[in-house]
């Protein structure tokens, strides 16, 4: 093992992180860039060179299959691009700590993907949760420590479930000798079911699926924006869905009912989170809820058991990491220029920050799944898979599945609505006077969001040729799920060329016929005063007030649907009971002792 150069993928970032502890800032940045660049390069070599790949597969504890390569490539690309954004712009008081934690996180996440041994896997999984907590503590918001605690409780609690699940699996299958890829069992019997539920909780909590999602919005609001784009928006999604994919594809053989339950969890996640996103007033929180809602599509795709939807789910995971980090970073640029992320205070910035507007628009259209961007392609694949499945199951399941299907498509209409509000509140509408002197974001920031936007377009147009052919379909082949046909028809390049051509014709017509005059806003004779400004945050008041949605919204705002708050409330009231039982009276304690002895005697 000592001679294995690919342990480098884990060690280089961790060493960089540790060395960064003592370096000054500039050197920190250079070293991090070199370190992450090197791991990125090695990953690329690993992905392109199958012989190395065969060789590393033999190594004990560390292992890598096609699914791992896919996750690894996605992570390195994201890590590099987000690092580019962070080079200039992280708040100076937390910059040092940021550049220590960043490479460490990359190392730990690489470790999760590379480890084949269940215990090594759990160690790295836990460590990546720790850096998540530390990142959250770096936030400067008032509730940063509170949200860090919440994150740690949910992620840490789910880690306990992960350990329990893997220990049960390891003991039930001694022949696998703790190798994750060697574990295989049908999903029947209490041990398998409990282990499955435990692992599912871990995967859902990490990826941010319902009902373990509540840490994502609060983390998004409080933590530094680069870390939000880095962890909950991308790396944690990859890890969570990676685990889920391993579970349903390799470890367990699931019955149709299990697939249906997973699809339903996905559909509920999509709708519940997007409905919450609709009414948010804080930009980061809005994006955080969308980061939850999109997980629903991945769970639906990966959990459905249909090969095409499985491929779509994995593709959606990759797409989500790209457009969601794009959106978070674009919001980060706005935040760094204006000093706020409250949607009510922003507006009309599109004139001042046109490049950021374009990037945010590409991100918003991708996440809403408008053709020809990447989000549409993966959603389209998931829908095909769901309908394929509906063809084969009995009528009861068919109706159930179709309801989930409708919720999924409607979810993307709701996503679109929420993002139109978001774009309107930040970039469109009237510019408040105080932002007259705002400038465009610095070059490294829009270069970073620009790269992500370009990826959104490229992956949407060349989906078949690039990600599917090179990274995702090999996964299916390796696991014997290959060979499916698309029932539908979608030629992304063709559609774009056609639309572009008509657009060009329209533009030429406009240019030839235009006679331009510039004038002020027309309000029927009134002056365009500041008080006539519409921010857009109130767009969905009618929905907020509608019965029975208003009741659910009220519950959600009282945190009755927040698992963390519920569990916290339970443990508080339990603690209160115990507190009352300890008044500090000697006589009472003596009574307890006597009672206790009596109980023991009776039991004896």
């Amino acid at each position, binding site marked *: 093992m000592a001679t294995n150069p690919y342990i480098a993928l884990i060690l280089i970032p961790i060493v960089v992180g540790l060395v960064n502890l003592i370096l000054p800032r500039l050197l920190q940045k250079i070293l991090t860039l070199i370190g992450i660049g090197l791991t990125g390069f090695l990953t690329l070599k690993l992905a392109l060179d199958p012989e190395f790949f065969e060789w590393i597969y033999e190594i004990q504890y560390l292992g890598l299959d096609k699914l791992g390569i896919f996750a690894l490539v996605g992570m390195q690309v994201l890590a590099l691009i987000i690092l580019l954004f962070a080079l200039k712009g992280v708040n100076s008081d937390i910059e040092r700590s940021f550049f220590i934690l960043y490479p460490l996180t990359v190392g730990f996440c690489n470790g999760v993907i590379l480890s084949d041994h269940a215990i090594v896997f759990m160690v790295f999984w836990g460590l990546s949760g720790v850096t998540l907590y530390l990142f959250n503590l770096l936030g400067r918001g008032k509730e940063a420590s509170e949200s860090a605690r919440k994150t740690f409780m949910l992620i840490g609690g789910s880690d306990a479930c992960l350990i329990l699940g893997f220990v049960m699996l390891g003991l039930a299958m001694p022949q696998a000798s703790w190798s994750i890829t060697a574990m295989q069992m049908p999903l029947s019997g209490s041990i398998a079911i409990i282990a499955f539920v435990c692992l599912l909780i871990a995967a859902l909590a990490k990826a941010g699926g319902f009902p373990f999602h509540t840490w994502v919005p609060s983390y998004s609001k409080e933590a530094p924006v680069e870390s939000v784009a880095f962890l909950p928006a991308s790396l944690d999604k990859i890890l969570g869905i990676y685990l889920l994919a391993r579970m349903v594809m390799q470890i367990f053989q699931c019955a149709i009912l299990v697939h249906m339950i997973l699809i339903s969890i996905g559909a509920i996640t999509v709708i519940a989170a997007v409905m919450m996103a609709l009414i948010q007033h804080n930009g980061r929180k809005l994006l955080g809820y969308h980061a939850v809602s999109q997980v629903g599509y991945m769970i639906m795709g990966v959990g459905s058991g249909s090969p095409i939807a499985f491929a779509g789910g994995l593709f959606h995971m990759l797409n989500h990491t790209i457009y969601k980090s794009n959106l978070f970073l674009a919001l980060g640029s706005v935040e760094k220029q204006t000093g706020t992320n409250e949607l009510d205070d922003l507006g009309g910035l599109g004139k001042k920050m046109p490049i950021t507007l374009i990037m945010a628009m590409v991100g918003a259209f991708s996440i809403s799944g408008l053709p020809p961007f990447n989000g549409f392609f993966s959603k389209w694949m998931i829908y095909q898979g769901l309908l394929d499945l509906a063809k084969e199951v009995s009528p009861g399941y068919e109706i159930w599945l179709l*309801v989930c299907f409708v919720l999924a498509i409607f979810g993307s209409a709701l996503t679109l609505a929420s993002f139109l509000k978001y774009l309107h509140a930040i970039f*469109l509408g009237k510019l408040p006077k105080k932002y007259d002197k705002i400038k465009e974001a610095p070059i490294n920031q829009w270069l970073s969001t620009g790269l992500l936007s370009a990826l959104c377009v490229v992956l949407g147009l060349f989906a078949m040729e690039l990600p599917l052919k090179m990274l995702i379909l090999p996964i299916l082949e390796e696991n014997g799920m290959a060979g499916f046909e698309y*029932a539908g028809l979608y030629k992304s390049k063709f559609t774009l060329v056609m639309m572009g051509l008509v657009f060009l014709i329209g533009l030429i017509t406009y240019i030839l016929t235009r006679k331009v005059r510039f004038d*002020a*806003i027309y309000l029927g004779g009134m002056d365009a005063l500041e008080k006539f400004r519409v921010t857009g945050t109130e767009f969905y008041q009618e929905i907020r007030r509608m019965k029975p949605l208003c009741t659910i919204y009220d519950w959600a705002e009282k945190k009755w649907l927040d698992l963390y708050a519920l569990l916290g409330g339970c443990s508080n009231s339990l603690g209160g009971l115990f507190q009352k039982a300890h008044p500090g009276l000697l006589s009472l304690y003596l009574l307890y002792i006597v009672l206790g002895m009596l109980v023991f005697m009776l039991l004896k």
Partner: protein
Amino acid sequence: MIGLKLLLLLGFMLGTAVFGLIVGWVDRKVSARVQFRVGPPLLQNFNDFFKLMGKETILVKEGIHWLFIAAPLAAFSMLAVISTMIWVALILNQGFGGDLIVVMYLMMIYSVMIVIGGSSTGNVYSSIGAGREIKLLLGDELVFILVCLVPIIQTNYALQLDQIIAKQAENGMVIGSVSGTIAFILGLLCIQAKIAMPPFHIAEAETELVEGPLMEYSGPLLAFWKLNHHMMIVAYPLLLVLLFFGGFNLQGIGILWAVLKYLVIVVLMILIKNTNPRIRIDTALHFFWRIAAPLGLIAVILAVLGV
């Protein structure tokens, strides 16, 4: 091959535009007759269009000009592609780069462009109208998904437009079943809302919001918005013909049937338009989500059961 497709696109784009302006005349004429007026001459819409083309374009000084200009053109290109997809499936029985899901998603682009183009100016009326436009989209989209599912289920999960027609030729039209009839009626209301025809002209609301998102538009750009509106009156009813009436058979008496199928839908829409006042946005949401959507779900369940 790609050259042929380009020709198809250009042909159907122009055809839809011209046809749309003529149907726009039918709309205006019938509406006028309902209100005991004479109504405009046949070519009035063409005159309006070309006159607007010659007028000056007023850009708002502090607005985002490129978005303001790009929005109507992008909506136009989307409509051209959608109508070509529908025409090619109807007439040539082929696919044109997209299936029903693609069409459903492309249709959402129109609302996006209305919102973005309108609110890029910073006009308060446009912003209010933009908010209503999205809410109306949310309302009708849920029902529209359910409506589109019914033909998909009845044709044994065919997604491509030409296959939906072919399956209906084998098994009979979708509208012939109970679920198909319910879905068709709901679909009619959905496209009424998508075209923003009264009683669903909530976003534009001339008397209240002064055309809402379109308020700052003038000259050629306004001409494009008007053209878009007319193209929708052609494309969306044709989509219903495709989904529920089994498309066209353009031989002999079939041509008459084809015209009749389309006219039935358009005349129904014009009559709904002329007999209903504009409804409030919360009423519209209430109607679509709490009355139409359960009905749509019933239609889907009936379709699964084969009724």
